[in-house]
């Protein structure tokens, strides 16, 4: 049986506003996580960034790591998430969050360091930083929001925009014969030896959001346990720039995004029976003598 949960309480800033409305005898079942500040998200109404921000904060709360967590904010819609989390935060240049996270983690290996990035940030301008932080096996946690568009700048084609998807900079639809194909990050990174865990999740329904939380928590737990680089790709929506209601955006996500970006675990070294990414990498290179030097010492 699981350990008894500590009672859920309101964050201090909601005590007056919300707490005063709670009658005696009423118990709180769900509330804002403490790792979130009272700052109002700058996201558009119905934007799924907010859901994922909350999941990250809940994981920080539940793992009890707020005091040692350092988050890296990207450039893009979540640029101001340094204001949303109660842990220490650094705002990085566009695409450079994994490099900044590397710097922090190397200085304070006992801190929990996460990067929160969108698709333009992680899969376009920051591809090099992403791939190399992953292949170095940096013991960091990366939360990747893939909503197939540049939101902050007003809806331009993203590295993950779907074939024929109309955006501001692909007004006739993404022409793959001219601009190529979307990048499938989870699949790409799962080939790298430094990677311990990659899962693609989404947030269009209760069940999917709960699964997303499980994945994010595992990605943090992996870091705490020193398992290796962990990334969770969240297939998300951008109602504003997709030009849809939040509800229709979820349907479009189910109809178009999920077939192109299948959900699931793409790499999980612990599920494969390894203690960490390094052990899995050694096994994969078992026929390479130089890669085996020092093994078993």
């Amino acid at each position, binding site marked *: 049986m699981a350990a008894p949960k500590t009672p859920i309480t309101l964050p201090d800033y909601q005590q007056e506003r919300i707490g005063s409305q709670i009658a005696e005898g009423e118990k709180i079942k769900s509330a*804002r996580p403490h790792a979130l500040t009272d700052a109002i998200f700058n996201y558009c109404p119905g934007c799924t960034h907010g859901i994922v921000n909350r999941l990250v904060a809940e994981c920080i709360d539940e793992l009890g790591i707020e005091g040692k967590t350092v988050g890296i904010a990207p450039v893009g819609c979540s640029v101001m998430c340094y204001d949303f989390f109660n842990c220490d935060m650094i705002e990085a240049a566009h695409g450079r969050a994994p490099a900044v996270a590397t710097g922090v983690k190397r200085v304070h290996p006992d801190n929990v360091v996460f990067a929160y990035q969108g698709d333009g940030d992680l899969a376009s301008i920051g591809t090099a930083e992403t791939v190399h932080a992953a292949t170095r096996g940096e013991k960091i946690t990366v939360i990747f929001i893939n909503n197939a568009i540049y939101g902050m700048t007003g809806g331009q084609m993203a590295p993950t925009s779907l074939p024929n998807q109309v955006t501001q900079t692909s007004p006739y639809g993404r022409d793959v014969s001219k601009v190529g194909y979307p990048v499938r990050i989870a699949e790409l990174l799962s080939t790298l030896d430094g990677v311990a865990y990659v899962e693609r999740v989404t947030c269009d329904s209760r069940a999917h959001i709960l699964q997303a939380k499980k994945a994010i928590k595992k990605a943090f737990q992996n870091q705490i346990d020193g398992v290796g680089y962990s990334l969770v790709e969240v297939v998300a929506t951008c109602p504003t720039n997709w030009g849809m*209601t939040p*509800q229709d955006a979820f349907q479009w996500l189910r109809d178009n995004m999920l077939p192109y970006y299948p959900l699931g675990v793409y790499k999980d070294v612990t599920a494969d029976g390894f203690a960490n990414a390094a052990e899995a990498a050694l096994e994969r290179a078992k026929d390479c003598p130089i890669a085996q030097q020092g093994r078993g010492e």
Partner: protein
Amino acid sequence: MARIIVDDVHCKGCGLCVSACPKGVLALDQERITPKGYHPAKLVDPEHCIGCSTCFITCPDVAITVVM
């Protein structure tokens, strides 16, 4: 008895909670406008709220507190 409390400071009236609610007990309150200018979510059928927290889980602005 379960119910929800909506934090008007955070609610942006996107309606995701309304469409996600399995019991259909939520609506956007057309009578009220939040300081940010949105019609906030409201529990309109308290009798049938089961406290499942689906609204909380779906809310992108973490504006909902669920109490029982």
